[in-house]
Every structure is written in C-alpha cells, then in structure tokens.
C-alpha cells in the first residue's frame, strides 16, 4: 500500500492496463476526497499534537470473482485511489498475489527506490567535509 500510495496514478495505470485477466469490478465505495489530520510529536518524540491536515482520497472496490480492495492515498486523484484499491484487491487473491507483486509493485518500488537514491546522491554532494587548518610556525 505504501508503494501504491507514493506512486502516481499514471504509473499504476500503465502497469494495471498491462495485466492479463483484469477482472470486472464495482465500487463498494466510490472515490471520496477527504482529509487526515497529520499528527507530530513535540521534540520529535514527545507529546502528540495536531500539525495540520492533508488531503486524502479513499476508495473500496469489489472484484467480480469476489474479494475487496481498500485504498487511502494522499491527494485528490480519484483514479489513483481506485487503481490502488484494485491492485489491493488483486493482491488479496492468493493465486494472483505473486504475479501482481512482480508486475506492478516491484517495478513501482524500483522506480521509487531509484528516485530516492538520486536524491540521496545529490544530498550527499552537499555534505560538509571539515578540515582543520594547522597553524605553522
């Protein structure tokens, strides 16, 4: 779910469309835009407090062959929540879990890992290398 939430709707759509045997499905709960109050902690580790809200879209789908999928994803993209719920539903079917993981989750995770690694490399280039000037006589 973390991978699907962080992916774009377009990226999931492309992988979803490429899946063989996509089951028919219906909404149990059509995409709904709402908010989640983001909590933080004083000092990072102390008392909880309400920092501010974020937009979130949720959706629940049911596959024709049975099985439901849930999604809560940041933002206001209904299709994103729908696709995440569909993938979630497929992953609940034991016979399809590995295939969906291989063809949807893994590629998305790899793209996200590469983006993170790039950020890490660019960030690492701004790390300060302190050196001490030795006073000579």
């Amino acid at each position, binding site marked *: 779910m973390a991978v699907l939430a*962080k992916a774009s709707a377009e990226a999931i759509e492309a992988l979803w469309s490429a899946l063989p045997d996509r089951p028919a499905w219906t909404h149990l709960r059509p995409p709904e835009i709402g908010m989640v*109050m*983001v*909590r933080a902690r004083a*000092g990072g580790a*102390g008392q909880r407090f309400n920092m501010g809200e974020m937009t979130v879209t949720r959706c629940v789908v049911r596959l024709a062959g049975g099985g439901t999928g849930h999604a809560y994803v940041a933002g206001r993209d209904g299709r994103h929540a729908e696709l995440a719920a569909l993938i979630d539903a497929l992953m609940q079917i034991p016979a399809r879990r590995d295939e969906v993981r291989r063809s949807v989750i893994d590629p998305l995770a790899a793209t996200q890992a590469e983006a993170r690694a790039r950020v*890490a*490399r660019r960030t*690492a280039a701004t790390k300060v290398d302190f050196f001490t000037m030795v006073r000579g006589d």
Partner: protein
Amino acid sequence: MYVAVKGGERAIENAHKLLAEERRGDPATPEIALSQIDEQLSLAVDRVMTEGSLYDRALAALAIKQARGDLIEAIFLLRAYRTTLTRFGASDPIDTAKMTIRRRISATYKDLPGGQVLGPTFDYTHRLLDFSLADEAAPALAAEVPAEPGSAMPRVADLLNQEGLIEEEAPGEDAAVGDVTRNAMTLPANRDVRLQLLARGDEGFVLALGYSTQRGYGRNHPFAGEIRLGEVAVEFTPPELGFPVTIGEITVTECQMINQFKGSAERPPQFTRGYGISFGHCERKTMAMANVDRALRADDLGEEVTAPAQDEEFVLYHCDNVEASGFVQHLKLPHYVDFQSELDIVRRLRADFEARRTGEAAE
C-alpha cells in the same frame, strides 16, 4: 453595528470582473500554470500549506494564483476550502527520526554522526541579485556523489540525552490531543494546542516574537540543535481495516532548539527544548516557532513571565493571520451608524467645551 445597505450589487459584480482581469494581467504575457507555481514558487506553496494547515501542493498553488500572490489571502482560501472536506481521522504521529534527509545541520556539534548536510539552501549565497535568472537558462546540474548506504542521522537531542543533560520529551500517550479546529482554545493552553497554533501561525508574527526572545524579552539563549528537511511517511489506521497503512509521503522541516536552563527548586540545571515544525521547507518559521514554543514554556519551567513571547494569551490569540486579517479588514465594512453616533457625541462635547471656554473668558 452594521446596517444592511442595498445598492452595491452592480458595483460589486463589476469590481470582481475588474479583479479577474487585473489578476490575469497583460494578455500578451503567457498565463502562469499551477505546475509553474508549484515547481518554481515552491516555498510560497510551502508557506501557504503550513499556515493554511492543509497539505496539498496543487490546491495551495491554485490559491496563490487566485490570490494574485497575496499569501495571506491564499492561506485564507485554503482554510475556507478545508471546511468543505470530511476528516477521515488522525494519522499516527509522523516519525521525523526516519525522515529521508535532504538537509540536516546542527549549530551545536560540528562532527555529529551523519554529518552536516547543507541541501538546497539560501545560506552562504551572497544575496546579490542574479541577473542570469532574468533570462530563461537551464541551471547547472546538481552534483552527485555516492551516498553512504544507511548512514544514520540520529537526533542531536538524543546525543545530549545520553548524558542526561537535556530534558527528555515524554510521549504521554494517554492525554487527548487538543484540536483548535474542533474546540475553541481555553487558557491556560497545553503544549499540544500551543504547538498546533504556532504551526499554523503567521510566519511574520512568530518570527518577530522569536526574534524578541533573542533580544532579551524572555531570554532563554537558544542554540539551533538541529534543523532537518526531508520526506516522512504518513501512516493512518482506517477504522474499517484496523491496521496502519502508509497513505503517502509529505515534506516537512523540523527545528530542535536547545536552550539554557539554570534549574529550579524541582529541576536540575539542564538544557531545555523548543520545537518547530512545518509542512514543506519553512526553515525560518520553524526556528522562530521553536523559540516561541520554548518561551511559552516559562510557566511549566517555573520561570517568571515578563515578556510578550512568554505571554500565552497574547501569543496564541494573535498568531493566526486569518483571524487577524479578518478583524483588521472588517474595519472596511460599513460602520455608518456607529460613526454617526460618534460624530454626535464629539459635536456635543465640542459644543460644551466651547461654551465652558467662552464662560471662563467672560469671568
């Protein structure tokens, strides 16, 4: 007192049409796209999300465009929009120790584990106008070096904690979390409510108060223990699922201020803490917020309250720019009847005054 006055409809309608045209500016200039605001005015977007108290880059960009770049007006628009949405619930507290770091500096330790990582900062720029930006030119590519895999970035406060020289933050899980969007604030306010109000508070107001503490109005000698910027996962437990799911990632900036404390009858001399956090990259705001958070803890720490920044009522009732702007700007509303009665009183007082003076001169 306000009186219903009719007759302004056409003027208002035309004023709004005029506003729309002024907003668009010269049609010969290309219209600005929301993605351009999001990407190229990203710190404005960050501020609007933080003080608008709603994380949504596209909405903040739209608000900035609609408000013609007036960020306080944009914040107002975002606050108004959020009232139209259902709240699904509250997230689990974000864990800033697990942040994907893009910037992390400390002014208290030079060689701290994980190092000083500057990231995208205005610091060390010379604040000279860069005329090359007046033309469209691609910037030089950012440098890349191999990142040390899994290099830990422990919190600076935790390093001091090992010696017991800094107060420990207690999670206090049992306490309910105050929410000023649901319940009116009452005084004295708890720290959770103070932090919520400061997080959405006006940057200018919080900055000035934070500055005042450094100039001696409630002095508590701050050190920037640590400032970090990066992405954190947000986890939420939907009631129908009963287990936490990651719903996305948000960018946050966090500032841990470390302050001197001489100790009191109950507490040993130790360092105390002030905390600041924002959506996006609002570094100045988080530093000022940490100063004010610490100042507002005067009562908890048995310090004498002498300065504005320590005065909870003063700070918390005036830090919200939507409320402040609304009350100041309501002065534009018709006060015709109010003013008529004031005018009457002043005329009467003036007549009395003149009569008295004439009488005295006659004696």
